[in-house]
């Protein structure tokens, strides 16, 4: 479903992603793990046509995101790490807009929206503007929206951030079901290792822009002699806390610092 070869993305001289290669089979659930600033989101952006790689190649369902962006875009759904809803519009309107953007036929659109909003327990409040929603509700709406056009491939960038355990549990049950029944391929990032252990068939660990492991959770635990995936993760990536580059200003400061040297 996805094949990335020697993928590299430079911001100035800083390599956010440094020569990574991996493959994801159809129907697989793969957890893409790494500390803050490891290159997870940059990789997802390249896979989802939002960023052009500096070098290397990507195939999504046999297509190149750089040259056939619209064909690739039809094939995936995405839940972004940060919000991407229109706050002024209602939940229903956000869904309708997505349906129109993805050309979900009008006849089935209404039914599917009802089903998804009910599933994520938002149906009662569908006529309220999103700005009145809590963080968890917004998150649920984003996920519901990402599923509206029934994509065969789903990118989830920290989908459970800020969700309570009940909602997280519910979400993973739904995604598992979607994967088993409709063979949806899922590529996800998360900081909750127990979630990755629970749902992922395979784990890809990235650190400092490089892939340092790609195995099943079982294999990783065995190799590192760990009881849990979290332990294995810490063994592989070390336990120092990473500074995340918060925004372009920080990146500019960093660049300025490099120039001064």
């Amino acid at each position, binding site marked *: 479903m996805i094949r990335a070869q020697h993928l590299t993305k430079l911001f100035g001289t800083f390599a956010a992603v440094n020569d990574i290669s991996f493959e994801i089979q159809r129907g697989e659930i793969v957890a893409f793990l790494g500390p803050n600033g490891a290159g997870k989101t940059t990789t997802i952006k390249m896979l989802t046509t*939002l960023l052009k790689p500096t070098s290397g190649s990507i195939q999504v369902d046999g297509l190149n995101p750089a040259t056939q962006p619209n064909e690739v875009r039809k094939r995936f759904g995405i839940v972004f790490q940060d919000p991407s809803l229109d706050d002024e519009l209602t939940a229903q309107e956000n869904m309708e807009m997505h349906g129109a953007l993805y050309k979900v036929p009008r006849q089935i659109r209404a039914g599917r929206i009802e089903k998804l909003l009910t599933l994520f327990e938002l149906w009662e409040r569908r006529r309220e503007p999103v700005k009145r929603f809590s963080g968890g509700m917004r998150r649920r709406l984003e996920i519901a929206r990402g599923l509206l056009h029934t994509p065969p491939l789903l990118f989830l960038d920290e989908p459970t951030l800020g969700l309570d355990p009940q909602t997280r549990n519910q979400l993973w049950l739904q995604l598992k079901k979607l994967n088993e029944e409709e063979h949806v391929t899922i590529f996800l990032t998360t900081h909750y290792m127990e979630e990755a252990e629970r749902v992922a068939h395979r784990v890809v660990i990235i650190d400092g822009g490089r892939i340092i492991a790609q195995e099943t959770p079982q294999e990783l635990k065995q190799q590192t002699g760990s009881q849990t995936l979290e332990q294995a993760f810490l063994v592989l990536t070390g336990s120092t806390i990473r500074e995340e580059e918060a925004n372009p200003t920080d990146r500019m400061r960093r660049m300025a610092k490099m120039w001064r040297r």
Partner: protein
Amino acid sequence: MNVIYILWLRQLKRYIRSRARVVASLAQPVLYLLAMGYGLGPIFLKAGMGSYRDFITPGLVAMTLLFTAVFSGIELIMDRQFGFLKETLVAPVPRLWIILGRILGGATIAFFQGLIFLCVSLIAGYRWDNLAALPVAFLFMVLIGIVFSALGSAIGSALSDAQGFQFVIGFLIMPLFFLSGAMFPLDNLPAALAFVTRLDPLSYGVDGLRHALNGGAAHFGLAADLLVLSAVAALLLAASSWLFSRIQA
């Protein structure tokens, strides 16, 4: 086509729901109308130029259009900051449609806002010359809306955060307004100023609007006004869609 419509509709919904914005963006032109229109009125009248209030009303309609349209274009930066932009960037539709929907939405909002201001000016005593010329005035309002909505969108696509905002207002919108002849007649200007007013696309919009609403001869001529505005609109549409197509998240 459906995509253009849905993004156009979104702009309209957001506009209708933010009544505060509707009122706030009327405050400035209304202040100009009352303070300048009546304040400078006696001097203008003494110079034998007629009613200053009537003279500036078309200019202030243009001002309303300019501000509303540019801001709705620049809203793109807000969408980028609050995230909704990404939703449209990964959608499997040509970016051209998305930006067209946004620009047309912004132009429509500007048009309505201009219309509201025109109604306010009627309350303040303004009367237009010739009702039959109203469609021509509307045509100019639409064109001005498109030109500056496209300009705002181009800026919004090129800037990645809101820090350039103040700069845009100070160095772009205010000069566009003041150099357009909205507040003064374009005849007998010093050569340098006359030259600059000719570079300002809004001059042609104000000229056409004033001709349509107030009667009298157009300074540049109606055909020239239409031609220049349409050409600038086409140019800015092309520029903004090019800049928008290059956005990476």
